[in-house]
């Protein structure tokens, strides 16, 4: 009788277990919508608001934004890492300038961005260390866990000079991402940044569309011939 009840219970439980199976994000993805394409409103990313920095950090940010705006108007590079052949780091990497690949295993999920071969590694079901327990780096330390169909990733330990939109931050900055499928081929990454430098958390999202069959290419920043002078102007080094 007990055996029968257990069997019945197991049978009832099985479909429920299957229903909450973790989705597989493995594969190649591109930012959605691509330029020139109108986003399906169901999948459109949220706009990126300005960070609500505390007053003592806001002046620095505003100075930077002014320079950034002037340079963009002149068509000059923003002076970000790329100009110097240095990768984005987190959280900029998730803007997905080029396609990205997700490689998913139960214990570890890697995300590689084609630009600069950048790879971040997410260790599953581990506790996030305190920020001062890790050496600051471009991608920091990331841990993940599943909440139903949503992959929740927490990251800390980002170097102070690795910034997103020139926004100053402390080494204690924490990035929390909630990554889930909005449709079988649409992935959403909702990003929340918390830091002592901020009045309140900074939240925005990106959407990605699956690129079936696309294989990421190698990207080694091998020969940067663009030289930025002191005024921020760029010149091309001519071979001969």
């Amino acid at each position, binding site marked *: 009788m007990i055996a029968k009840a257990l069997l019945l219970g197991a049978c009832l439980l099985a479909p429920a277990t299957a229903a909450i199976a973790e989705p597989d994000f493995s594969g190649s993805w*591109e*930012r959605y919508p*691509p*330029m*020139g*394409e109108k986003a399906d409103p169901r999948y459109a990313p949220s706009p990126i608001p300005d960070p609500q920095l505390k007053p003592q950090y806001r002046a620095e940010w505003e100075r930077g934004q002014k320079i950034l705006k002037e*340079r*963009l108007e*002149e*068509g*000059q*590079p*923003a002076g*970000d890492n*790329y*100009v110097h*052949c240095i990768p984005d780091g987190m959280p*900029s990497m998730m*803007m*997905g*300038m*080029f*396609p990205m690949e997700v490689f998913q295993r139960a214990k570890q999920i890697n995300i590689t961005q*084609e630009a600069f071969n950048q790879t971040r590694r997410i260790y599953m079901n581990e506790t996030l260390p305190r920020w001062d327990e890790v050496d600051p780096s471009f991608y920091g330390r990331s841990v993940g866990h599943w909440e139903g169909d949503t992959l929740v990733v927490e990251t800390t330990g980002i170097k102070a000079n690795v910034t997103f*939109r020139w926004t100053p931050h402390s080494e204690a900055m924490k990035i929390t991402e909630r990554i889930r499928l909005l449709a079988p081929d649409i992935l959403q990454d909702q990003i929340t940044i918390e830091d002592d430098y901020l009045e309140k958390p900074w939240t925005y999202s990106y959407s990605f569309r699956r690129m079936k069959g696309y294989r990421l*290419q190698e*990207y*080694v*920043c*091998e*020969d*940067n*011939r*663009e030289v*930025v002078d002191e005024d921020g*102007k*760029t*010149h*091309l080094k*001519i*071979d*001969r």
Partner: protein
Amino acid sequence: MRFAREIRLFALPCAVAALAIPAAAHHSFAMFDNTRSITIHGNVTAFQWTNPHAYLEIDADEGKGASKHYTLELTSPNMMSRGGWTSRTVKPGDVVTAVLSPLRDGQPGGLLLVLTLPNGKKILPGVPHADRYKITS
């Protein structure tokens, strides 16, 4: 139409590159004069398939047997590859015609806008916001 098809092929990489403002601005296109173009014709001396940019070196005919060397910047191999290029699309010794936005500082070089291969096929390097570069030559 073949040319139209190639433009479509390039629509994807252009779009990918222009997704975010930082992407459009991460390398300078301001050093090129986008208000005019020049057209050169000559021998390819090197085609360098590298990041962050590919480069095409051309000895351009200047008439009366003279030539002038030009260095042309292209986009990046991954974008070009998604647009149909390979590292062997053009090779040293090929005689090509190139339309380019010249460097503002007067050095002999520029940003490649259109390349005509020895077989007459025109190919684009997938410049982000290509419509902002006037072809006047």
